[in-house]
């Protein structure tokens, strides 16, 4: 969990898909949360000493960050590193979920129509080279994001509604929006200013106005040439040498960034503008070292041997390998609910899944409780809605969808499915005098055993109900292509939601997103949902938003476009020498608050 949150405004496909289910999400934005917010205080280790500085924190990571360019980097590994180097203008307090100023002096002044935001920056904030953070840097950052040739389409997407950005004074920046959106406070607050003098030392974008970037091809040739040159340099030259205003720095990339081994961040030299403020990501430890080990078994051994201090563990490791007294003496574990959930998506471009009754019947055949107990070893919880259950927007009236094969048969019969030819498979009149069998294939990505086991368990139950279902695991890239082009029947995937930021279901459930490459990859179309989602986005009253989302959740519950299966718990293990470990309701802990008593410090 970090201070930053800019990219976490909507649900996100679980990256676990790629990483074989390794529970690494406690380091992603708000992807984990604690079961009981009231337990926060009790979780902190009792201590009477005041926190002291020193020691290192060694965090296990499964793979190297691909790139440390804060705009073009697009992987979870990078964002957990970059959060220490690039603090945002405004952050979400993990305890209260309120917005609080970081680089900004205070929360922005917002126009009543929510179309204009003015941020005043603190005057004492400096980049690690000592130069002050100015409004010009914020404008530059937004220009770099908007620049069509900068490889940042994801970031560009978040700031799409920004229509203009100007520096009013040295420390005042004004941002105009083309339309009101309730998450703008979060998204704009999430801007992480980049030093213009470093990332664009020739000031190539200097005379390019923000608005001109929308009509890039119409730029005058000389301006365009400079802007092109900027994009090329920015894309290529800043992948291993980030420089920002944060507490930690990558001091010497040659020494501290060793592919396949480590990313080592060190405290920047004093004076530091946020010194003594762990809530602004100033850590007590002197170094944070991300240790790359792509073998989680070896990483667990390293944790027990004391060369790794914090890691996400797999369920089987959590249950079977943390128990012995020698380990308990040194290692603490933590179990959190997580914001991610696993689902079976029914592609509604396939005729068989277009009928709500069929989808309801299939959901009745998925024994969520049993799957949580057997497949997930009890370390997952059944889910009924796409919203993170700890968020206030979650509709608590949703009852668990029952596992009920008899009811499923009844629904299928009602929908006109019957085994007329006696081959053991239900069939349906295909409208042309023939019969279509109830036959489909569920796909998921190879390498994720949890999803494979889930697939095998459900097809077994489907077969018993006269449904000819099969399961196949395919390579991640192939899965992406097939899902993107709706070329599949059903798919097991996951999404990750943030606990810190209000949800926005638009991306996944609005019918306009049911296009090739859109996130509504099951092609769910419902006019009621569309209109609720649109209203929700411009509703600035949280209570009214909740009412709208209760309706959306009730419709989704009834329609069962996905069978929502389970939310895996996030499992963490860490070295007990750390004090000040607090688990927040928004998910995870602030590692900047972790400290080690002088006597127990290990690295000097």
């Amino acid at each position, binding site marked *: 969990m970090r201070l930053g949150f800019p990219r976490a405004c909507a649900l996100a496909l679980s990256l676990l898909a790629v990483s074989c289910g390794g529970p690494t999400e406690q380091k992603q934005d708000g992807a984990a949360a604690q079961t009981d917010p009231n337990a926060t205080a009790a979780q902190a280790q009792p201590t009477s000493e005041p926190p002291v500085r020193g020691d290192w924190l060694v965090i296990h990571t499964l793979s190297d960050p691909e790139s440390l360019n804060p705009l073009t980097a697009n992987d979870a590994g990078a964002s957990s590193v970059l959060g220490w180097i690039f603090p945002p203008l405004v952050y979400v307090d993990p305890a209260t979920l309120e917005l609080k100023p970081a680089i900004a002096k205070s929360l922005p002044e917002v126009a009543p129509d929510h179309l204009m935001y003015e941020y005043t920056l603190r005057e004492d904030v400096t980049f690690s080279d000592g130069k002050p953070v100015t409004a010009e840097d914020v404008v530059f950052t937004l220009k770099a994001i908007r620049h069509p040739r900068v490889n940042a389409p994801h970031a560009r997407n*978040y700031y799409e509604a920004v229509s203009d950005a100007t520096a009013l004074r040295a420390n005042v920046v004004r941002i105009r929006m083309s339309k009101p959106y309730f998450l703008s406070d979060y998204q704009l607050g999430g801007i992480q200013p980049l030093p213009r003098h470093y990332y664009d030392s020739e000031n190539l974008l200097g005379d390019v106005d923000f608005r001109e970037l929308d009509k890039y091809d119409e730029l005058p040739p000389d301006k365009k040439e400079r802007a092109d040159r900027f994009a090329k340099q920015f894309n290529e030259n800043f992948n291993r040498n980030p420089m920002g205003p944060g507490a930690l720095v990558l001091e010497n990339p040659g020494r501290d960034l060793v592919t396949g081994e480590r990313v080592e961040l060190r405290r920047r030299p004093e004076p530091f503008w946020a010194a003594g403020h762990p809530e602004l990501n100033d850590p007590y430890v002197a170094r944070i070292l991300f240790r790359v080990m792509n073998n989680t078994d070896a990483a667990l051994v390293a944790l027990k041997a004391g060369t790794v201090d914090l890691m996400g563990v797999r369920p089987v490791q959590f249950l079977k390998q943390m128990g012995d007294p020698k380990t308990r003496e040194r290692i603490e574990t933590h179990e959190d609910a997580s914001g991610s959930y696993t689902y079976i998506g029914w592609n509604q471009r396939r005729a068989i899944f277009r009928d709500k009754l069929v989808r309801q019947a299939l959901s009745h055949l998925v024994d969520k409780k049993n799957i949580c107990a057997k497949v997930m070893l009890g370390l997952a919880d059944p889910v009924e809605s796409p919203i993170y259950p700890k968020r206030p927007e979650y509709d608590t009236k949703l009852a668990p969808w029952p596992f009920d094969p008899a009811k499923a048969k009844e629904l299928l019969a009602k929908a006109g499915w019957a085994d007329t030819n006696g081959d053991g498979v239900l069939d349906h009149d295909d409208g042309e005098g023939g019969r279509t069998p109830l036959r489909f294939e569920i796909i998921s990505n190879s390498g994720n055993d949890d999803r494979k086991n889930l697939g095998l368990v459900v097809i077994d139950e489907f077969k018993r109900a006269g449904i000819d279902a099969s399961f196949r695991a395919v390579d991640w890239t192939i899965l992406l292509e097939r899902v993107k082009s709706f070329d599949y029947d059903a798919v097991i995937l996951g999404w990750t939601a943030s606990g810190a930021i209000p949800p926005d279901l638009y991306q996944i459930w609005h019918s306009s997103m049911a296009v090739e490459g859109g996130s509504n990859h099951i092609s769910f179309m419902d006019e009621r949902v569309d209109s609720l989602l649109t209203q929700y986005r411009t509703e600035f009253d949280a209570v009214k938003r909740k009412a709208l989302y209760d309706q959306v959740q009730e419709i989704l519950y009834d329609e069962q476009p996905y069978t929502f299966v389970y939310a895996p718990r996030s499992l963490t293990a860490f070295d007990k020498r750390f004090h000040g470990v607090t688990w927040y309701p928004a998910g995870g802990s602030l590692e900047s608050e972790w400290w080690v008593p002088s006597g127990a410090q290990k690295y000097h």
Partner: protein
Amino acid sequence: MSWALLAYAARRIALAVPTFVATTFLAFSIMHLAPGDPVELYLAGGLASGDAGIRAEKLADAERAKAELRRELGLDQPIPVQYLRWLGGLVAGDLGRSFKDRLPVWDKLVERIPVTIGIDAAALLITYLIAVPLGICSAVWPGSRFDRVSTGVIFALYSVPGFWLAVMLIVFFGGGDYFAWFPPGGIRSLEYSSDWSFATKVADVGHHLALPLFVTTLGSYTELSRYLRSSMLENARQDFVRTARAKGVPEWSVVLKHIGRNSLIPMVVILAGVLPGLISGSVLLESIFSIPGIGQLGYQSVLARDYPVVLALFAASFGLTLLGILVADILLALVDPRVTFGKSGT
């Protein structure tokens, strides 16, 4: 002789060029025809991003970004054109830039090659240091208890799956619940510093590499020592050995000089065959022991469809294979005077 040798080498190199081109072109085409598009992988909206999707209104922008990236990476060209560009770059000494992080491929290789070569060279040295004496002793006392026991042991070791043993060693000796004798992964300590004395550095790296080297070398003693043994036994029956013994040459000299030297011929051939293996590294062991070597890089690059890196690794490995064969032939001529390179020769 040496002129003939040079001419032979030149001819072989000339022949190697078309072979190299054809093979790399084949590899290039297969790689591009395989499913999975790097641009989709890096820029896919919604699904792959691990983030929110791209809005419908902005899909055009996403498509434009993809087209832009495709153009930038040169993927918009037909495969033969892309290949020629790559080949042209190679001739000029430019391997291109990685798709993933835009670093020059050469830099990425240079970062990892020393690790893999170091480990493989150390493994090779250890293998020879153990296998050669083992082979000689087995050949000197064939059928003895030593011969039978050592043969049994090395075959048993040969049969142990390396990846399994590696995990077991980490669990039992990596300091988890059992013995903290060796570090569970990596090639040096977290505190490793360039200020350390040379001896400390060597000790630290050696400590980290003990388990990986043990596992790497386990399976290789067998082949080498068996080859040497049978080759020596064969040579021991030769007339020149009997002659040497008859004229009173001391037994150690017979074994080492007369039999040993002649038996080294197959060793040379094996050594040359090892050359490409030197840089390829082991995907499995590097992954299990978290060693940032070439094998790991290759594996990750294939998963990420990072064509320039995959291709560079393939070209290096294939180039070394060709070189290895050539070197083996030439070495063979040097150690074995019976091999000639006249036109009528081979």
